[in-house]
């Protein structure tokens, strides 16, 4: 234990100090650069651009190479940090006044940044440059709107669909899950198909005599504690709203329909035995376990977002199929989320940062990213390029697109959602482990989440 104390107490201080040090040196170097520039005629400016996805980074490098050719006076330096560190890094740099000029923004953190004046209002720039906002999905434009102003142009989006193991379905002679139904009382054809695809050591399926739920070797579907990739979609399909409104402070999941939905998702584990145990689906590892079991061929289908296409397809030794979410009582509903680039309010180069923002949300740049298969473009007319790129790799990704055109819901957007979500996640873990009932879990979760949204700590 010894050194731990020292390490833990010293490291944050050291890193804070070095951070501060970096900030200072950056400052002086950029200002030195600036004075140099104003002396020379070329005026070359270096912008820092921060993002978190290493797969998409490759595509963005290609787009930025073109941008730099078109804007010889701007250089762009990409900084990639994984999601788990990204927000700490960004917020600490904001505190030091040295955040990157441009950075990927997410709806979970956007409200905190915008209400604390960290983001540049883009509305005047949009007007000045005559950007056609109608070219984007309207719901994506609205996500980064605050008090009538826009703080980020949509550059991409994602929806949720079923990933399934084509080879396994063919081997077991089960029809591909391309048009499933789901309802909270019987589970619909989702449960039927999942039962057919669940096999125990002796080759028996759930519901057959002699089936042993403790010796399952292949699971049909996965129920796991992930909101966007899993249960938000089912809640929406049963008419349950998560948050009362954008920038709202009331969580509405604890309705009878909410309880019924979560009960049905728990039934997948504890009643129908078509899902890996709840202990595999808890928050800390649920997403990673779903992906791993699927890649190992032990899981026939699960729900996931299109951002996982690249890592999943590249590690599967079988053919991956993508299917629409099952149709629920209120139809088929997917969470649809989009990222935008935000410009740091204190950037020294707002004009150049805007030029980069405009480029990254332009049809030209989105074309580069879509046709490389990196991400769905925020401009609907270019979506076929992304589908074409994946068709070449043998994966039909159009279900994601179909869902984006159907009924969608947004991720909850409000201040301090991070803490509210954390409270819900923890309570739901206990529900997944069958330690508390859905009724209790929802009640507790909503109470704590409301407390967090009301400004508690």
């Amino acid at each position, binding site marked *: 234990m010894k050194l731990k104390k020292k390490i833990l*107490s*010293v490291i944050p201080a050291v890193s804070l100090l070095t951070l501060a040090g970096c900030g200072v040196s950056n400052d002086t170097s950029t200002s030195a650069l600036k004075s140099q520039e104003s002396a020379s005629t070329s005026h070359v400016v270096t912008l820092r651009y921060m993002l978190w996805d290493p797969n998409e980074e490759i595509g963005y490098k290609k787009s930025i190479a073109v941008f730099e050719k078109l804007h010889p006076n701007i250089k762009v330096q990409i900084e990639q940090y994984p999601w788990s560190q990204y927000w700490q890094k960004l917020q600490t740099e904001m505190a030091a006044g040295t955040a990157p000029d441009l950075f990927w923004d997410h709806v979970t953190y956007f409200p*905190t*940044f915008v209400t604390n004046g960290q983001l540049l209002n883009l509305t005047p720039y949009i007007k000045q440059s005559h950007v056609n906002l109608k070219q984007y999905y309207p719901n994506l434009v609205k996500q980064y709107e605050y008090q009538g102003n826009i703080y980020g142009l949509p550059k991409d989006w994602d929806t949720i669909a079923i990933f399934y193991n084509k080879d396994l379905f063919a081997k077991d002679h089960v029809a591909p899950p391309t048009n499933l139904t789901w309802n909270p009382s019987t589970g619909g054809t989702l449960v039927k198909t999942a039962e057919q695809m669940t096999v125990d050591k002796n080759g028996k399926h759930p519901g057959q005599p002699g089936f042993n739920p403790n010796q399952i070797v292949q699971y049909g579907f996965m129920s796991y504690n992930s909101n966007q990739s899993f249960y938000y979609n089912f809640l929406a399909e049963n008419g349950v709203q998560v948050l009362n409104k954008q920038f709202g402070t009331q969580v509405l999941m604890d309705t009878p329909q909410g309880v019924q939905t979560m009960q049905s998702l728990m039934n997948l584990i504890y009643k129908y035995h078509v899902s*890996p145990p709840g202990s595999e689906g808890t928050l*800390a590892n649920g997403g990673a376990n779903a992906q791993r079991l699927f890649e190992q061929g032990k899981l026939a289908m699960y729900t996931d977002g299109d951002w996982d296409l690249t890592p999943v397809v590249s590690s599967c030794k079988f053919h991956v199929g993508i299917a629409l979410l099952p149709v629920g009582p209120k139809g088929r509903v997917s969470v649809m989320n989009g990222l935008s680039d935000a410009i740091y309010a204190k950037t020294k180069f707002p004009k150049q940062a805007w030029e980069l923002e405009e480029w990254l949300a332009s049809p030209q740049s989105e074309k580069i990213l879509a046709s490389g298969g990196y991400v769905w473009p925020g401009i609907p007319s270019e979506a076929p390029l992304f589908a074409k790129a994946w068709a070449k790799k043998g994966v039909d990704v159009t279900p994601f697109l179909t869902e984006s055109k159907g009924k969608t819901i947004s991720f909850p957007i409000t201040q301090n959602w991070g803490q509210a979500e954390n409270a819900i996640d923890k309570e739901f*873990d*206990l529900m997944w482990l069958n*330690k508390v009932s859905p009724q209790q879990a929802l009640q507790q979760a909503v109470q704590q989440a409301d407390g967090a949204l009301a400004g508690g700590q």
Partner: protein
Amino acid sequence: MGGVSSHAHVDLKYGDGGMSTTISTRTVHSDKSLMREKMARSLAPYLLVFPSFVGVMAFMLIPALAVIVISFFKWNMLSPPNYVGLHNYVDILHDPIALHSIVTTAYYVLLNIPLQTVVAIMLALLLNRRLPGMGIFRALFVLPWLAAPVAISVVWQWVFDPTSGVFDALLSSIGLPRLQWLASPTEALPAVALVNIWQWTGYNMLFFLAGLQGIPKYLYEASELDGSGKVRQFFSITLPLLRPTLLFVLVTSVIGSFQVFDTVYVMTQGGPGTSTNVYNFYIFQQGFQFFHMGYAAALSVILFVVILLVTLFQMRFVGKRTTYDLG
């Protein structure tokens, strides 16, 4: 911490070489040069301490003071801090998660310390022999402490996996029921403690080994002549004379246990539910995930006070009647 230990080297002696040069100048302006030499002599220690003083100030004292100041503010790092007086402290008293995390941490310390200390003493006794290859064994037991905690945690996560982990394969192969380990609210904290014990026992063993080797052999010889057995020797000679080591190991390992973070961060993220939500992890969440810096600072101050009290208590009761000089 390097800064603190270097204080020990401040006590330098001035060589004769320096003296002889000053003597030769003294014949010319004896008074002035004497003054100058005195000045230099009294200044030198400060100059030598200065680098580590700066280090201690910059990396320890100033941040620690800053934490105390910040704890009276509401601050999300993005907007200017807001003075709220004792509000954060009052909030903590009404925060069920904070109170629960204190209980969790205390439980964790209790799981860790007794087992870790007893095993470390036993290992030290085993390894305190002159046998061929003993050096290899000693090194092996210290190895876990040398490995990076994050890497260790990732590997143990695989070991603990409830469907494909090594531990469950072992348990079921000898007919024992499977455990859920990190996935169970009751088993997760003991599992985390197990990893920490595995990691730190070898390191603590080193101190006990050094302590054992400092006990004079003649004490054992004398007691043997008096007819005392091994058990009697252990309780009447070894253990009492290991007291200074024991005090040191207990104080430092209790502090370390109260501040457990990295294994929890990697293996459980405080879950399932709040079962491994130890205090330091909660401070991290409040500060760097929810960006309630003032609140996180207030939590840290409370932890500091708790650790201070526990350490004083240990000094009082374990430190009492401790002999440091075995000469």
